[in-house]
């Protein structure tokens, strides 16, 4: 059951970078593209997804001995759907404004293939601890993409950052809002749906460029003992 530091690190690198659900697996694109018109929306949906993903990985891993192959898919669906419904009710109760903004995309977390994908590919074959860590890291990777894309689109389209923070952090959150220019002067394209596709495309391109540069650096020094460059290539 115990995990050494190396496998912790590997799980983290997988979720946050190498196998990021938003930028590499390209799973859960529907909510990813739809709600990322501001940081707060991205953060809200990202946290909800993170919670569901970790919870479902934990439950699936705990139950993996009883999940025989022929019933595993419906069982995954049951687990994920119950968790999502519970999270949805909790958000409605404690983050009512944010719940109203995110609307249909909270129940739609059920259909985020990243979650059932991790249950099937990882949690159903792994002990509890790695399964939780995998859920956390994959969820965090997804959340980061949502927040970065939301930030880009919000700055370009609205001239603000963290607008609506009070929906999440209460009255004190209103002080967090940064305004760079008047929202009427924003680049409208950025907050419209095409802006989401273009923004995600740019993010993926940037990630590939970084990976490419690392790979070519590693190729130039073939006998480099460095660990850091070694993880960059698959």
């Amino acid at each position, binding site marked *: 059951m115990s995990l050494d530091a190396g496998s912790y690190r590997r799980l983290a690198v997988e979720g946050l970078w190498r196998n990021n659900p938003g930028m590499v697996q390209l799973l859960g694109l529907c909510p990813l593209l739809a709600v990322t018109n501001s940081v707060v929306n991205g953060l809200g949906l990202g946290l909800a997804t993170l919670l569901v993903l970790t919870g479902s990985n934990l439950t699936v891993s705990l*139950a993996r001995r*009883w999940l025989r192959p022929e*019933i595993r898919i419906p069982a995954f669906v049951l*687990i994920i759907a*119950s968790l999502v419904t519970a999270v949805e*009710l909790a958000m409605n*109760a404690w983050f009512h404004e944010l719940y109203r903004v995110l609307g249909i995309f909270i129940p739609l977390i059920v259909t985020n293939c990243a979650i059932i994908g991790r249950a099937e590919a990882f949690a159903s074959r792994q002990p509890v601890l790695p399964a939780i860590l995998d859920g956390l890291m994959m969820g965090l990777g997804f959340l980061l993409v949502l927040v970065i894309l939301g930030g880009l689109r919000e700055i370009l389209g609205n001239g603000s950052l963290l607008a609506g923070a009070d929906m999440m952090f209460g009255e004190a959150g209103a002080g967090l809002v940064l305004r760079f220019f008047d929202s009427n002067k924003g680049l409208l394209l950025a907050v419209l749906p095409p802006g989401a596709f273009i923004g995600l495309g740019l993010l993926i391109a940037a990630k590939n460029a970084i990976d490419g540069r690392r790979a070519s650096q590693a190729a130039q020094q073939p006998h480099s003992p460095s660990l850091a460059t070694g993880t960059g290539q698959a």
Partner: protein
Amino acid sequence: MAMSVEPSPDTSATRSAARGALMLGLFAALGATLVGTTYQLTRERIADNQARRLQQTLHEILPPGAHDNPLHEDIVSVSDAALGSADGQSLIYRARKNGSPVAAILEVTAPDGYSGAIRMLVGIYTSGELAGVRVLEHRETPGLGDGIERARSDWIEGFSGKSLDNPTPDAWAVKRDGGAFDQFTGATITPRAVVTAVRNALIYFRGHQAEIFAPRASQS
């Protein structure tokens, strides 16, 4: 087991299916318990949130001092095409002071927004003057049509104080159509839909005022 007969493939398949079904049933029961518990824990808070939000919106249209009855409880439900709701039912919140009618806040739907229906609340004093208008729900284009939101622009405030005599009924249109109301740059359809819906609500209110305030089927 020693004297057992080989189970026929049929029974073993049945047994396996039954075990699978049992497991699934167990998971379903666990899931239902989780959802049920969360529902019980959050139910009151959610109802509270919804009531508070409704009250907030109602009070944006009609200040709390203007009436002394609980607005969100003094409700009638009417069905009239002029109010435009898809299911034919529109709620009307009635404001009274010392028992006599002050104003009504009507749920109005403009069916002809740029991308679908626009749901709003229209508050009208008994004199026929508008107390205020607020948009509850819309899917208009961000940056163009969403100027009807109070958070985006103060265009919607322009309705306060207007009535069917001010401007005259034929001027109840956007400027592009020869009326008295501003449209937005790049968006005419959205304000046109809102202006028309507000005018229809005013006409409906003028024709049905007595009915609206009649004390039928409500808690007051």
